[in-house]
């Protein structure tokens, strides 16, 4: 590769490279996005560094210290078995964050491939795939996930696979609409006159131009995937006890709420809400920025 051949991924680089500049500009123009991004970074760092940050093992039971309120010993208090809620919240973010990331990764991959294929081939194939996206879009993802759990059993794998399938049309529809606009641009025509193959044009020309829009869609999807995963765990269909998971913790903490010990449900629920709002906010704001740049 020659030194400038990295230009193929220029838009990716642009996305990441200008981040610092964008961050400074946004701090002035869009403090909300700044705060959201900051929250997100803190949450992810906390979850990833859980083994370093957590003061206790998440499953360490201490029956002499059940239902304790927040204190210096237990920042968020303890649950029915005397486990440290702060440590469990840190560890409990792993499944939802990893799961959502996988869902978005798979859904984005397949959605982009399907949508680009549809746009490039056009005609009957495009109509067929578009109808398929519409049908998939109409089918509730959560229902599909529950179905998958019923067939393949509880855990993280079945819901993640099912939700990845459910989110594919969501990504695909957006990608298709953006790629469709891109495909009619004159430079695509110029590429085919140069004798480039359809695959080369899609991979090296259309996709890099579609990429920023797909990123926005993927970011927002990440938030929704987290809610879905948390819902499944809440219903007891995801991560199983004694594992820690935010959705599961909200559900496990329920009986204690009546006994005036809402800490477990409260802090796990807060973690979900905070993360999802931050993620969706970043996605939406980034999308608005793109839209204003496109104008």
């Amino acid at each position: 590769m020659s030194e400038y051949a990295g230009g193929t991924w220029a838009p990716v680089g642009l996305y990441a490279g200008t981040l610092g500049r964008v961050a400074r500009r946004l701090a002035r123009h869009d403090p909300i996005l700044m705060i959201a991004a900051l929250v997100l970074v803190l949450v992810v760092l906390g979850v990833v560094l859980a083994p370093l940050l957590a003061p206790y093992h998440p499953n360490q039971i201490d029956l002499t210290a059940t239902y304790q309120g927040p204190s210096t010993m237990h920042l968020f208090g303890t649950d029915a078995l005397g486990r440290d809620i702060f440590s469990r919240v840190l560890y409990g973010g792993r499944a939802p964050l990893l799961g959502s990331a996988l869902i978005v990764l798979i859904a984005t991959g397949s959605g982009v491939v399907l949508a680009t294929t549809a746009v490039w081939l056009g005609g009957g194939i495009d109509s067929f795939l578009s109808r398929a996206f519409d049908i998939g879009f109409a089918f509730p993802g959560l229902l599909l996930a529950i179905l998958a759990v019923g067939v393949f059993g509880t855990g993280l794998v079945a819901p993640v696979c099912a939700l990845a399938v459910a989110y594919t049309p969501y990504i695909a529809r957006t990608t298709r609409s953006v790629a469709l606009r891109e495909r009619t641009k004159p430079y695509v025509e110029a590429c085919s006159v140069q004798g480039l193959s359809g695959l080369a044009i899609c991979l090296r020309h259309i996709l890099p131009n579609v990429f920023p829009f797909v990123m926005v869609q993927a970011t927002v999807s990440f938030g929704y995937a987290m809610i879905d995963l948390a819902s499944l765990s809440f219903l007891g269909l995801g991560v199983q006890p004694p594992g820690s998971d935010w959705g599961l913790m909200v559900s496990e903490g329920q009986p204690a709420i009546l006994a005036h010990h809402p800490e477990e449900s409260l802090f796990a629920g807060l973690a979900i809400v905070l993360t999802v709002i931050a993620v969706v906010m970043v996605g939406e704001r980034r999308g608005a920025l793109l839209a204003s740049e496109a104008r």
Partner: protein
Amino acid sequence: MSDPLLAIRDLSLGLRVDGAMRPILENVNLTMSRGEAFGLVGESGSGKSMTVRCITRLLPPGAAVGGEIVLNGRSILPMSRRELRQVRAQSVQMIFQDPRAHINPVRTVGDFLTEALRSVQGFNAKVAEKRVIEILESVWISDPKRRLKQYPHELSGGLLQRVMIASALAAEPELLIADEATTSLDVTTQAEVVALLDELRRERKLGLLFITHDLELAAAICDRTGVMYAGSLVEVQRSATLHERPLHPYTLALLAARPSLAQRARLMTVAGSPVSLAEAPPGCPFVPRCAYQQPECHAARPRPRPFGEGETACLRVGDVLSTSRTLQDEVPS
């Protein structure tokens, strides 16, 4: 004219518009020999661009093409996609009107230029880069190494158009199609690009199909000029003769509509408005605007036929010729 570079015979084209077939081109006949520059002139919507799009088969889906296009002895229309890609990559290249829109904005100039060389012709990156630098120098671009790393938005329109020409030349085509390649440029840049095209054509023995709506520009660099009206070629002549002795009333009207510095008179316009092939009357499409019309002009669509060294579709050539002679007498050169 043995073994022509390009031969278009009885080309017709219909496009699907709102479910109905709409005729765009009819009876287009054109032959170009190797190294010849041919100018294709006409108003917007007369079918110039569509004609050249047929040559590269760059047509919207649902287009119905009839007739025959032979490039370099190979018939284009029945080709498979694979063969077509090969022809596009090697024999024919196209330069478009708006280089800014026709170059992917998010990739560097170097990337744009070397891509076809690398992925179609199979050069490795180093060799491709070297070749591209040579070509950039031959299109009068200074400091080509730096240009390679720049993005299209960093370059001016004229520079970008030369980048586009360079990309077309990289494939070493035999036929170069310039579709209004200079229209979007300002006059000095336009002159530069036109001079460049002319030089390249002579040096490399390129066939140049130059599309423009500027009759004089066509005359300046083209050996022969064809005038299109309503989807067919109404006149083909050597460029110089076309200006002195037009064979079709439409050409005559176009020439009369040129602004003249000598006579600051009111600009003449061609009366009426141009029609597309779909709206054209059954006879000669120019009839509604023609001063020479006779009943026979309304009967059937006249086909272009040889006249002197050129071709004309006009049945009243005699009358047109006598007018153009008087015109010659009136305007002292």
